[in-house]
């Protein structure tokens, strides 16, 4: 079955709403509008306004309400339209959702799923192009997921809802229209793990480590390098918190080299964290200094050529790989 990322996410939400009456979807324009990215199209009619709950433009209020509802026994899925707007709700996510379990000495958990679109690449300019996954991945107490494939878009939501603690899911806006084959056997169980990184393309000479919207770029770069006989491995982090250090270390120890691709700005980036762990874990296996391909240190510009120049691109990844391999 060939499906889009959008459709895979829609199916996953549909499954969740059908299978558990505690699950409800709440956010701006998730209902009558059908979702900003059309992920919840048709749900309003099917499940009604209580479970497909349109909210006012009150990110702090409705994310906090989602936390309260989770405390109260529900399994809310709160959609924040984009990571840019999530800054208005940052207080509730960081100061309440992530901390309540610990501050209560383990008495309460917050089984909340927050979904948000992230990333640049559509000329939406500086305020609608952030990649702030690392901000959330910094916070103990929440799990951060970045589904980059159709299978993960289909399979990550159910285990996220089964997690008794808050889970933030980042959906890169550039991925919604991507398509791929999805397993579709009778009684198919699409649920996947939300613990481990995944090797998306095995290779021997270097590991390209990435996540989310940069995965297709990394794979494109790997294809181009393969045409020149350069065989690189591509590792998809999938889970940005807690990071799967084992899989990263296993791969880099084998290839001895790493290029980390991250749409976040370089300074204080997730790529920096990955690089730090590589150095901590694999120092004596490294055959070259790890290199990062991140967004340039500039707000994301509107003009297409400038936006392209600011973001990681396949060509930059190829150049970085060649630099590390000295070929």
């Amino acid at each position, binding site marked *: 079955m060939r499906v889009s990322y959008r459709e895979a996410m829609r199916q996953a939400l549909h499954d969740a709403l059908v299978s558990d009456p505690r699950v409800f979807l709440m956010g701006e324009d998730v209902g009558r509008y059908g979702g900003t990215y059309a992920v919840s199209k048709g749900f309003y009619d099917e499940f009604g306004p209580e479970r497909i709950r349109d909210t006012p433009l009150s990110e702090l209020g409705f994310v906090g309400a989602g936390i309260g509802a989770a405390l109260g026994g529900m399994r809310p899925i709160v959609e924040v339209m984009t990571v840019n707007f999530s800054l208005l709700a940052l207080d509730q996510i960081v100061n309440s959702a992530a901390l309540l379990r610990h501050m209560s000495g383990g008495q309460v958990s917050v089984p909340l799923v927050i979904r948000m679109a992230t990333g640049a690449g559509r000329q939406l300019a500086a305020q609608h192009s952030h990649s702030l996954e690392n901000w959330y991945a910094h916070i103990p107490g929440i799990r951060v997921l970045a589904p980059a494939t159709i299978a993960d878009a289909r399979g990550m939501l159910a285990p996220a809802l089964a997690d008794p603690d808050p889970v933030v899911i980042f959906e890169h806006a550039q991925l919604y229209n991507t398509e791929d084959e999805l397993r579709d056997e009778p009684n198919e169980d699409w649920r996947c793990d939300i613990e481990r990184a995944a090797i998306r393309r095995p290779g021997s000479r270097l590991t390209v480590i990435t996540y989310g919207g940069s995965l297709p770029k990394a794979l494109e770069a790997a294809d181009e390098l393969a045409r020149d006989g350069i065989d690189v491995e591509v590792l998809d982090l999938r889970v940005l918190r807690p990071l799967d250090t084992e899989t990263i270390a296993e791969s880099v120890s084998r290839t001895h080299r790493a290029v980390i691709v991250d749409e976040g700005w370089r300074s204080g980036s997730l790529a920096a964290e990955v690089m730090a762990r590589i150095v901590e874990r694999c120092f004596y296996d490294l055959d*070259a200094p790890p290199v990062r391909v991140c967004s340039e240190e500039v707000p994301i510009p509107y003009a297409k050529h400038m936006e392209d120049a600011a973001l990681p691109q396949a060509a930059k990844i190829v150049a970085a790989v060649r630099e590390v391999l000295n070929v």
Partner: protein
Amino acid sequence: MFDFTLPSLGADMDEGKLIEWKVKPGDTVRKGQVVAIVDTSKAAVDVEIWQDGVVHELLVEPGERIPVGTVLATLLEPGEKPPPEGAASAGERAGKLTPAAAPGASEAARQRISPAARRRAEALGVDIARLMGSGPGGAVTLADVEAAAQPGASKSAETVPVAHPEADRNAEMRRAIAAAMSRSKREIPHYYLVETIPMARAQRWLAQVNEGRPITGRLLMAVLQLKAVAAALAQYPEMNGFFRDGRFESVPAAHIGVAISLRQGGLIAPALHDVGSKPLDQLMRELADLVKRTRAGSLRSSEMSDPTITVTNLGEQGVESVMGVIYPPQVALVGFGRIMERPWVEDGTLVVTPTVVASLAADHRVSDGHRGALFLAELRECLQRPEEL
């Protein structure tokens, strides 16, 4: 007091190994004097100094591998008195202790080697000090260590330092050429132009000149071609110079890099200096000397770093034309094919005449095809008036 640092002797050189000092403390040196011999990945190169002075202190021992920019020695200005005993030595001032002062503590001497390669070298008993690195910045990599540990490669200090110096030299040169040419093709947007140039006049003129000369005084067509290129460059300076740090630096004199293939394989294109201002006889002598020294592996540092354009003459090997790869940071390369007789129309009549296909590969960041075409036309005209060269 001033520092003498290791110069970059080519776009692809970022480190070298000091082979020999030609001076000692107390020696007076003149601008242009060869003061040291440094092994680059391509050749043992005589390194000149560009300032008069008196050698004060040598900071690097022969055998050390050092990055470009390392302070090799300190010198006193002419007439300057040496600093008093006990004052901080120049080496300390420069942050680099001499090995004699602190054995093994020299930052400059620290070899670049990846952690994995270091550990592997320990396990295999490979002496890393003798390895040439193929990694970024010349770092020794796992592959270098494993290659050195192969049967036949030297393993311990007791054996000959390098088991196959010639093979290693060739491999290094191959890597150096690979790096420079890859960089060129990555960074330089080449454009290519060709022009067929009648050579009857030039050949006739050269034959007349050589006819009355003993064999040791004869000129080669190559010299005429080099001089013609220099003459054309005088009109089109945007083909002559360097593209560095995002901008073009024109150079007034044409220091033409002459592509010289080595018998054991590989290629070096050292500079024939200021071709435009020298008479043909002098150029011929200098070219003969340059070829000889290139093949003997004894070039001067300025010959490695100075070329402002490269001329290749693959026609010697019989091909009709050659489309070259620009040697960064240069911005152009002129290629000559074989001089061969071709049908040619002259004044409305079909004749058979010797011609050569000249090509221009040029950097589109610096010049455009229009100017390139004018340059080739100028080259053609210069070769029609050999007596003026």
